[in-house]
C-alpha cells in the first residue's frame, strides 16, 4: 500500500503491536475470542493510522520526515506499553496455551499446520486485495500521487483523502497480521513487538522484492525468510551458533539489491521472463 502511494512507513510494528495487544488483551481479560477481537483490533489500528496520516498529510510531512514520524509513534507506543498494567507491562502478556493437538479455529488454537494454512489463506487474501485495488480507481490515484503529487492534484485527485485511505487500508491489513501474531506466539512483550527491527522487517520484503509491485513483496519476503532461516539452520548444523547472522544476511541482501537491482528483484526478473509487473 505504501509502495503504491509512495509513503515510506518505518513504524508498522505499531499496528502489529496494537492489534496483537487489543485482541490478546480482550481474550486474556474478558475471554473474547480472536474473531471478534480482530474487528476491534482493526478498528483501533485504522483510527491510529488515520490520526498519524492526518497529522502527516495535513501538515505536508513526506519522505524521510514521514518515515521518522512513523518511527516516533511506534517508539513512544512501545515505551507507553511498558508502563501499562493492563497489558502486563514489560513483563509481558501470556495467553493460555491450549492443547495443540486439536484444531479449534473458533478460538484460533491448534497445531502449527493450522497456523500455516491460516497464514497462507491470509497472504493470498492480502495479495488478491492488493491486486484488485491496484486495478481500481484507488490504484491509479495512488500511483499518480507517488509519481507526481502536484500533477495528480491538477487532474482532480484529492491527494489528502487518497493518502489517508492508503494509510487506513495499510494499517487494517497490518492489524490482521498482528492478531494472528498474538495467537500464534501467545506471549507479547512491548520490547519485541513494537521494536523498530520489526517495522524494518515488514518494509524490507517490499524493498528487496520491488516497491509498488504485486509480486515484489511476496518474493522479497520469501527470499529473506527462506534464505535467512536456512543460513541460520545451516550454520547451526555445522555447529556454529552465531547470533544475529540473519540480520547480517539481511544487510548483505539489501546492499546487493541496492547496488545491482535498485528497483528490486521482481521488476528485473519480470523483464527477464517477459511478463508484466
Amino acid at each position: 500500500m505504501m509502495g503504491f502511494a509512495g509513503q515510506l512507513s518505518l513504524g508498522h510494528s505499531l499496528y502489529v503491536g496494537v492489534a496483537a495487544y487489543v485482541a490478546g488483551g480482550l481474550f486474556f481479560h474478558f475471554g473474547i475470542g480472536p474473531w471478534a477481537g480482530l474487528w476491534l483490533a482493526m478498528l483501533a489500528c485504522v483510527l491510529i493510522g488515520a490520526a498519524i496520516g492526518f497529522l502527516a498529510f495535513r501538515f505536508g510531512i513526506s519522505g524521510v520526515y514521514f518515515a521518522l514520524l512513523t518511527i516516533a509513534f511506534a517508539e513512544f507506543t512501545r515505551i507507553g506499553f511498558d508502563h501499562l498494567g493492563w497489558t502486563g507491562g514489560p513483563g509481558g502478556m501470556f495467553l493460555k496455551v491450549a492443547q495443540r493437538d486439536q484444531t479449534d479455529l473458533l478460538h484460533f488454537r491448534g497445531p502449527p499446520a493450522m497456523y500455516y494454512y491460516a497464514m497462507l489463506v491470509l497472504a493470498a487474501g492480502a495479495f488478491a486485495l492488493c491486486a484488485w485495488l491496484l486495478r481500481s480507481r484507488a490504484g491509479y490515484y495512488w500511483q499518480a500521487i507517488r509519481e507526481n503529487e502536484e500533477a495528480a492534484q491538477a487532474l482532480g485527485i484529492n491527494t489528502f483523502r487518497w493518502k489517508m485511505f492508503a494509510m487506513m487500508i495499510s494499517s487494517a491489513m497490518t492489524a490482521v497480521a498482528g492478531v494472528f501474531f498474538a495467537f500464534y506466539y501467545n506471549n507479547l512483550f512491548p520490547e519485541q513487538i513494537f521494536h523498530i527491527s520489526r517495522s524494518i522487517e515488514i518494509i524490507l520484503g517490499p524493498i528487496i522484492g520491488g516497491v509498488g509491485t504485486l509480486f515484489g513483496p511476496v518474493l522479497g519476503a520469501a527470499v529473506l525468510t527462506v534464505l535467512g532461516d536456512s543460513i541460520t539452520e545451516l550454520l547451526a548444523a555445522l555447529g556454529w551458533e552465531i547470533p544475529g547472522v540473519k540480520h547480517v544476511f539481511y544487510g548483505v541482501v539489501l546492499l546487493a539489491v541496492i547496488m545491482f537491482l535498485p528497483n528490486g528483484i521482481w521488476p528485473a526478473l519480470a523483464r527477464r521472463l517477459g511478463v508484466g509487473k
Partner: protein
Amino acid sequence: MTLAVAGVTKSFRGLKAVAEASFDVAEGSIVGLIGPNGAGKTTLFNVIAGVYAPDAGSVAFLGKSISGLRPDQVCAAGIGRTFQIVKPFAGLSVLDNVIVGALQRCKSVSAAKSYAEHIVAKLNLDAKRNLPASSLTLPDRKRLEVARALATRPKLLLLDEVMAGLRPTECDQMVQVFRDLNRAEGLTILLIEHVMRAVMALAQHIVVLHHGEIIARGAPEHVVRDPAVLECYLGEEAQI
C-alpha cells in the same frame, strides 16, 4: 463569461508577481497570454488553477467564484491545465497517465480506459501508448500533458507553453488539434505561449503581461504593433 479574473494580485515576499490583473475569457474563445520571461504569466495560471490563493482580487468560473479552491476542486469545476515544466507520471505508461485524468469524469476504470484511448489517438500518441512516460521525448511529453488535461473533460483548458521545443510542423499539428477541439466541442482555451506562430494562428484575443501588470490587450494584429508591447519585448530604441 467562462472565466473572469478581477483585480488579481499575488506577491512572493516583496515581489509583486501579478498586480491587479483583470481580464475575461469569453465562452468558446481562444485567448493568448503573452509577455517576456518573468512577467508573471505562470503565477497567474497557478492562481487560476488553485495552486496559490490570490492576495487580492477574485477569479470566477462560469459565474462562480473559484478563488481559494484547491487544485483538485478547480479541476472538478471544469478547468484542465498543463504544466510548463512537464510533470508526467514517469513510471506509468502513456495510456495509464491519461486514464488517471479520465477517471475524473468516468465512473469506472474501463470507461476511463476507453475514453483515454480516444484522447491518446487524438494527440498522435497511439503508437507509444504502452511505453512508460519516462521514455518519451520532450515534444511527446508535452502532448501527454495536453492529453492528460483533456481527459478530465474540461470546459476551459489552460495551456502553459505547450508549443515550446516543437518543430514548426509539430507546432502546426498541435495548433490544428486545438482548433478542432475549439470548433467541434466548443472548448475554451487560455494559452501562455512564446511561439508567436502558434499564438497568431490560434488566439482571437491577446493579453500582454509585463512585470505583473497587463499593459495591452486586443486583437493579435493590433497588439503586436502596440508601442508598449514592442518596448517591453525589444527595448525602447526599437520604437519607431
